[in-house]
């Protein structure tokens, strides 16, 4: 035992440094600090940061013993009990400088350290300083602004009174937010997974006896334990992913065995004792290799599963050919005839890269056996859908499965659908005790990724620039297992035409298996891939025809009220107005002189576009008004920082005419909460929000009906406002009416609402799209022609919120998604050497930082009022990621005359393209880049 005494948030404390050698564990464990949470476990992200003697330190890489005699400050220490918050905490809340909140303690402390060092920093210094820590959600602009405002607050320059904080805001800036990773239950075991070192191998044998004998090990699970399961595999439509590898492993990192033990260290030690006999098999690293004749097969037999329904013009095939797990095809009109008579046909190919979600809270699940069933806390976006999957896998009725979902430390699609929950349940059932499985960020890199893709487009155009027809062939790299790939293929295939009027379309999208990390949901969900290719090619066509790229788009854009495609819902945004506004902001048509001879400037424009709100969605909600007139919302949208809970509060507040502060949100619990199909496709505001609005209307109706009886007046002569029933100038608190009728034990009023997007076989995806999500982007770049480096001088990213219920959250969504796209466009990617992932740690996997912000970054919220959600609202959660990449590609061509068609646009690729152009101009003919 090594007693280490130090000062923690102003109070003396001593801990056993031998028992908790890493400071993060000492603080979050024996010291009881709720605001210290490890994310990357590499000292790379800064989420676990504390101040040691006022100096920033990542607690995940600090030995506890080294802080002896020193002062450690956590974010909780910035606001003493009952005391006022620090200026930084206040500025972060009032500036909406956080979303999921995982990075917030570290960011707040980093800002404190800066302002202690320099009370009046310039913006550039703030940007450079705050670039130490990673935020995956906000896009950093809000953080930067908050730090500058905190400086003003500290200096007394700004005297505005503080506003009251919402509970989740207070929790995030004071370190009391509660994530799934914080859940603990009595008798909890820790689980770890043994992962395959091979990309493709047959499992000959697994020897677990030594691991099972290790003291502290309670359960070991392998593929042999799947024999008793009703369905051993999961996946959306194509159920090919085993709960744990059975006969084969199909990618590096594929789970082979899992151990539940008294603690994580014991579980890891047990993994090292497991011997696996592998027979390595030839592997396929790329789509090309997977589709080559005679390619090794990932699956020798068809997988389980059943495809979802489709509507007009669509054919879909499950596992139509070797290594292809799904094919989607959408046809409209006579493409051959249109191509035959077109003035121009342009054929281009685009390669889309692949990012990791890299959430600061990775996947974490706690499973507890409960009688025949079990209880689960899981960082999952779709608790009811997950319950259904688990019911199928374990052959249990759904009512015996209870799932709690807490606030998520971001998701971006990583946490949609079933992931490692069945494996955790399997361990818990075998152990007969609760088990926690928390992936590290490194494991996250090997668990799910975005889809890389190659998109080949043929586009027929009239001489006057009218778009006529498009054929496309899209190959998605689905990785080793289906996950959500089939649905992503639907979406990329249906969206690749973009928001333009076409006479004919024939778009095919295939999801292809490779021996790499499985791909699945990722913010944009096929829309990013489609928009990159389509909006790049539109610009190329405009330049080839000598047309202005903005004018070409304006000529072909679908106007509001016209269906996207026959049988589908109508366009519900004014795309022309948005494009013109963004073009004006970027100074379209004006060219600034370069700042140096080796630099060139250019501008680009794009309209990213996708459908949103999900397919045929069904959501329910319940709103209770309690005896004192305040309201509680129950719905299953999972809050992961997108601001859904506050949007719901404002919807209810508007209907019930009360302050949002008097509306709270119940936690998600499948036993208690109103049903919802899941939190994806930017459906929270528009779909679940509408169910919430209807529930609020229902409860309002019940209250007024009740009051009408009590006051003996017609209900339509009454109003409900601020918790009181009003009749003319008379106001009676609801509380008084309740007590008068129900007595002192009180009562509540409940309203229920639901929304179902009806199926429609005339619509391609078997239901009309809920709403359309445009992302108008304008960008100015500066290209270094000697190194190929691209700098963003000005980025304008705009979205249509219909009506912005929570404007600061809408802005944050646009900015966060846009910065994610900036990363994807310029540097962020999973790099493979064959089937081996090279960027497999947070130190190697480069994520955007505040230092990557464009010199000027404008997010624009349009409120065009045509949304189908409450009060005309739409979602914007995915918008910002859609148009940025193509806009930057277009700007690069504008600057230096080369076309980049493969993401990311690293300096290497840009320089190679410039070289190729120079050779071409020198008469050597075109050179492949």
């Amino acid at each position: 035992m090594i007693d280490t005494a130090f000062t923690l948030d102003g109070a003396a404390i001593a801990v056993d440094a031998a028992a908790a050698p890493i400071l993060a564990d000492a603080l979050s464990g024996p010291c009881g600090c709720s605001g210290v949470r490890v994310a990357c476990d590499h000292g790379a992200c800064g989420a676990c940061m504390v101040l040691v003697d006022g100096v920033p330190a990542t607690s995940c890489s600090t030995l506890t013993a080294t802080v002896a005699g020193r002062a450690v400050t956590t974010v909780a220490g910035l606001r003493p009990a009952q005391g006022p918050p620090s200026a930084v905490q206040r500025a972060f809340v009032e500036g909406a400088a956080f979303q999921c909140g995982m990075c917030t303690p570290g960011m707040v402390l980093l800002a404190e350290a800066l302002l202690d060092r320099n009370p009046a920093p310039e913006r550039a210094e703030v940007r450079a300083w705050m670039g130490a820590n990673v935020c995956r959600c906000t896009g950093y602009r809000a953080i930067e602004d908050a730090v500058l405002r905190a400086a003003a607050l500290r200096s007394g320059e700004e005297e505005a009174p503080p506003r009251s904080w919402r509970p989740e805001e207070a929790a995030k800036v004071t370190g009391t937010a509660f994530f799934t990773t914080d859940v603990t239950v009595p008798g909890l075991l820790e689980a770890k997974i043994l992962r395959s070192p091979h990309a493709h191998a047959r499992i000959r044998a697994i020897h677990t006896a030594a691991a099972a004998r290790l003291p502290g090990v309670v359960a070991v699970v392998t593929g042999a334990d799947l024999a008793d399961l009703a369905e051993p595999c999961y996946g959306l439509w194509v159920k090919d992913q085993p709960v744990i590898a059975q006969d084969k492993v199909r990618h590096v990192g594929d789970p082979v065995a899992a151990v539940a033990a008294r603690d994580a260290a014991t579980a890891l030690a047990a993994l090292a004792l497991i011997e696996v006999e592998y027979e390595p098999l030839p592997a396929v690293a790329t789509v090309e290799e997977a589709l080559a004749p005679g390619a090794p097969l990932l699956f020798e037999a068809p997988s389980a599963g059943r495809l979802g329904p489709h509507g007009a013009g669509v054919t879909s095939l499950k596992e139509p050919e070797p290594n292809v797990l799904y094919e989607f095809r959408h046809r409209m009109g006579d493409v051959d005839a249109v191509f035959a008579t077109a003035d121009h046909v342009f054929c281009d190919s685009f390669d889309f890269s692949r990012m990791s979600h890299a959430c600061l809270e990775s996947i974490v699940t706690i499973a507890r056996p409960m009688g025949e069933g079990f209880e689960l806390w899981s960082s999952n976006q779709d608790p009811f859908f997950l319950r259904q999957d688990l019911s199928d896998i374990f052959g249990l009725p759904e009512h015996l499965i209870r799932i709690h979902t807490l606030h998520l430390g971001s998701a971006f699609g990583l946490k949609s659908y079933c992931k490692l929950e069945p494996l955790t349940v399997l361990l818990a059932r075998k152990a007969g005790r609760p088990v926690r499985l928390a992936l590290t960020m490194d494991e996250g890199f090997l668990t799910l990724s975005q889809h890389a893709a190659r998109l080949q487009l043929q586009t027929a155009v009239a001489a006057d620039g009218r778009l006529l027809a498009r054929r496309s062939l899209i190959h998605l790299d689905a990785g080793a297992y289906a996950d959500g790939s089939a649905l992503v293929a639907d979406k990329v295939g249906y969206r690749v035409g973009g928001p333009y009027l076409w006479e004919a379309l024939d778009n095919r999208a295939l999801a292809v298996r490779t021996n790499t990390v499985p791909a699945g949901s990722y913010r944009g969900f096929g829309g990013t891939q489609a928009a990159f290719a389509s909006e790049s090619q539109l610009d190329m066509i405009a330049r080839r025809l000598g047309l202005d790229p903005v004018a070409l788009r304006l000529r072909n854009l679908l106007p509001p009220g016209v269906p996207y495609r026959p049988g589908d819902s109508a366009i519900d945004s004014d795309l022309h107005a948005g494009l013109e506004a963004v073009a004006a902001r970027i100074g379209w048509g004006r060219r600034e002189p370069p700042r140096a001879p080796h630099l060139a400037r250019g501008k680009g424009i794009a309209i990213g576009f996708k459908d949103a709100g999900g397919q045929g969605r069904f959501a329910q909600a319940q709103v209770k008004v309690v005896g004192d007139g305040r309201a509680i919302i129950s719905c299953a949208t999972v809050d992961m920082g997108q601001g859904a809970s506050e949007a719901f509060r404002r919807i209810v507040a508007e209907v019930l005419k009360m302050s949002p502060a008097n509306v709270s949100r119940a936690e998600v619990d499948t036993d208690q909460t109103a049903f919802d199909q899941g939190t994806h496709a930017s459906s929270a505001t528009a779909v679940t929000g509408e169910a919430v609005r209807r529930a609020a209307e229902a409860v309002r109706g019940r209250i007024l009906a009740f009051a009408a009886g009590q006051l003996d007046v017609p209900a339509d002569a009454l109003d409900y406002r601020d918790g009181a029933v009003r009749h003319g100038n008379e106001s009676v608190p609801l509380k008084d009416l309740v007590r008068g009728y129900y007595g002192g034990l009180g009562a509540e009023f409940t309203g229920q609402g639901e929304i179902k997007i009806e199926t429609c076989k005339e619509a391609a995806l078997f239901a009309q799209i809920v709403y359309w999500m445009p992302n108008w982007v304008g960008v100015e770049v500066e290209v270094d022609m000697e190194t190929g480096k691209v700098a963003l001088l000005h980025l304008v990213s705009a979205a249509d919120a219909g009506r912005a219920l929570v404007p600061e959250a809408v802005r944050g969504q646009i900015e966060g998604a846009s910065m994610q796209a900036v990363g994807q466009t310029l540097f962020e990617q999973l790099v493979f050497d064959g089937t081996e992932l090279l960027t497999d740690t947070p130190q190697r996997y480069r994520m955007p930082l505040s230092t990557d912000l464009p010199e000027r970054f404008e997010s624009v919220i349009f409120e065009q009022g045509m949304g189908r959600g409450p009060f005309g609202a739409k979602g914007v959660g995915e918008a910002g990621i859609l148009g940025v990449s193509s806009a930057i590609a277009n700007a690069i061509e504008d600057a230096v005359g080369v076309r980049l068609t493969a993401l990311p646009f690293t300096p290497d690729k840009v320089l190679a393209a410039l070289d190729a152009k120079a050779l071409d101009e020198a008469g050597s003919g075109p050179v492949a880049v």
Partner: protein
Amino acid sequence: MPQASLFSAPPPVSPEGAPRLVAHRTRHRIAPFRFLRAESFEAADILLRANPGAVPMAGGLDVVNRMKEGVTPPAVVWLGAIPGADAITHEGDDLVIGAACRHDQLATSPLVQALLPDLAAVWGRIASSRIRAQGAVVGNVMADVPAYEGPALLAALGAQLTVLANGRSETLALADRQEEATAPVLVTALRVPLAAPSGVRRLVYDRSLRPALAVALSLDVADGQVLAARAVLGAGHARPVVRAVPATGRTLGEMAAQAPDLAAQAFADLPDFTTPWAGRTAYRRRVAPQLLSRLLKEAAR
């Protein structure tokens, strides 16, 4: 040297004979170890000898990271409590940086700002504010992580390591460390040579293309004439690649005018890069002279 340590080539990440644990680089893998607080470097040397396999630690970021990968030192010898171990002093013709000196101390040191202002200015831009606050300069140099920036900058300046082993102090030029060499067990200080009294020493640095590459240039100038120029390529190798720039004897004006040729000559034979995830070797070879050429012009101004 008496013991292998974290300062030598990385050992295997899992115990001998055990399977590699894919994706399990985590603090939960840290095996029990003894934490030994040294009161002096001499005491640290004795502790290291008394505990074979023990590792010295100043900032700690990289030592802890390697322990998370499965390295299992029986003891960690903590240098952070040694009085004066973080000091920066002026000794003879050298700037002496103590083993526990943090990056931020170097960047903000009035002594460094006075004696070698370029070093202070450049050091204030490396890594990140948090790493500069937490990490030790010596730890950064000795970690052999290609992405780290300290080694390139200090190698450009011709820095030397002062090491203590078996009670004996030795010096070793940073630029002379070889990939395969066993590094010293205990570094007590870094010595950075200063310019001759009649001359000026410049240090310029281009990190704009990190993580693909970074280039540092040090220049000794007297009476407008180049005495020595040393270019270092960082970010692509465990140890930075040091090259002399054939500019000696030229005026600054001549050096600027001939910058592209001088840069091309200096970086004519770059080895293959060892960080393929950060870029292609061909590209890095192509642009490294470009960055160096710009630095030569910048330094001439």
